[in-house]
């Protein structure tokens, strides 16, 4: 039953990503040229409501559907990994025009060359795992 809920949630997410054009290479390119408000509008709106939802959870101690307390762990403090990792991710995001979510959306939409991006992204994750102890974090 829960599996179906997750598949349905993913389906809605996939439809939103495609229909909002956040999965379009063109929109990412346009965003990095600061020539449209569209992508900033999507991320900005998601952020405003995201902050409100999380504040509601914290203020009113909203519990999960199972009745568990919701505690959101803070991210580890560091600068290196977020800055360097972020820059590397940003280079790929702009080049391939897709981040991990939209990669799956585009494969579903039938753009088969995106499979190359996915396989290569798994490989990149794998190489990170191999080099992890040697990188500054």
């Amino acid at each position, binding site marked *: 039953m829960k599996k179906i809920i997750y598949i349905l949630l993913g389906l809605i997410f*996939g439809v939103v990503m495609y229909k909002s054009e956040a999965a379009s290479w063109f929109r990412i390119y346009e965003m990095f040229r600061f020539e449209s408000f569209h992508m900033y509008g999507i991320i900005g709106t998601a952020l405003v409501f995201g902050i409100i939802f999380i504040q509601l959870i914290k203020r009113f101690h909203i519990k999960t559907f199972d009745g568990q307390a919701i505690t959101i762990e803070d991210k580890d403090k560091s600068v290196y990994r977020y800055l360097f990792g972020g820059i590397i991710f940003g280079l790929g995001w702009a080049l391939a025009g897709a981040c991990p979510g939209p990669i799956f959306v585009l494969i579903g939409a039938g753009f088969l060359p995106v499979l190359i991006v996915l396989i290569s992204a798994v490989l990149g994750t794998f190489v990170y795992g191999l080099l992890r102890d040697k990188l500054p974090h």
Partner: protein
Amino acid sequence: MEIIYQPWSWFVSGFLIALFMFLLLLLGKRFGMSSNLRAFCSMCGGGKVSSFFNYDWKKDSWNLFIVVGTILGGYLAAHYLSHGAMPHINESTQLALQDLNISSENAYLPNELFSIAALSNVKTWAILIVGGFLIGFGARYAGGCTSGHAISGLSNLQLPSLIAVIGFFIGGLFMVHVLFPLIF
């Protein structure tokens, strides 16, 4: 119905993304798509060569069902919920694309990169492979991608996520403004 077939507004889309994150929190989960890439590595036996992949990925299998749904969502949206209207990008963006020899007519993605025909060009392979590699490596190094940092992390007012998002933009701006003219 007509409103569904049109491209969706940024406001509706942004709200639905936040709602999606909220529902995941109510289910006791965290919104983050790139962690699935780590799960793929573990499923393929990555734990034998790096302890980073030696974790109980089955605990995160719910996220793999999200992935299945996301793929289905892309299929549904492209084949049944669209008239074929394509991103209406800014005119100056279109002109810049012409300079790069990338056509922006009537396509959701550039044909020069994402059509089957483009795969006959070695350069296309190089771009897709390098792009994917940087996405996978960078997302794990930074501990998250757009969903984990720009949406979830910033929503929870996390400074590390702000640093990561600044990094995303440094990398993205450098790619588009400095490297694109050299690549295309």
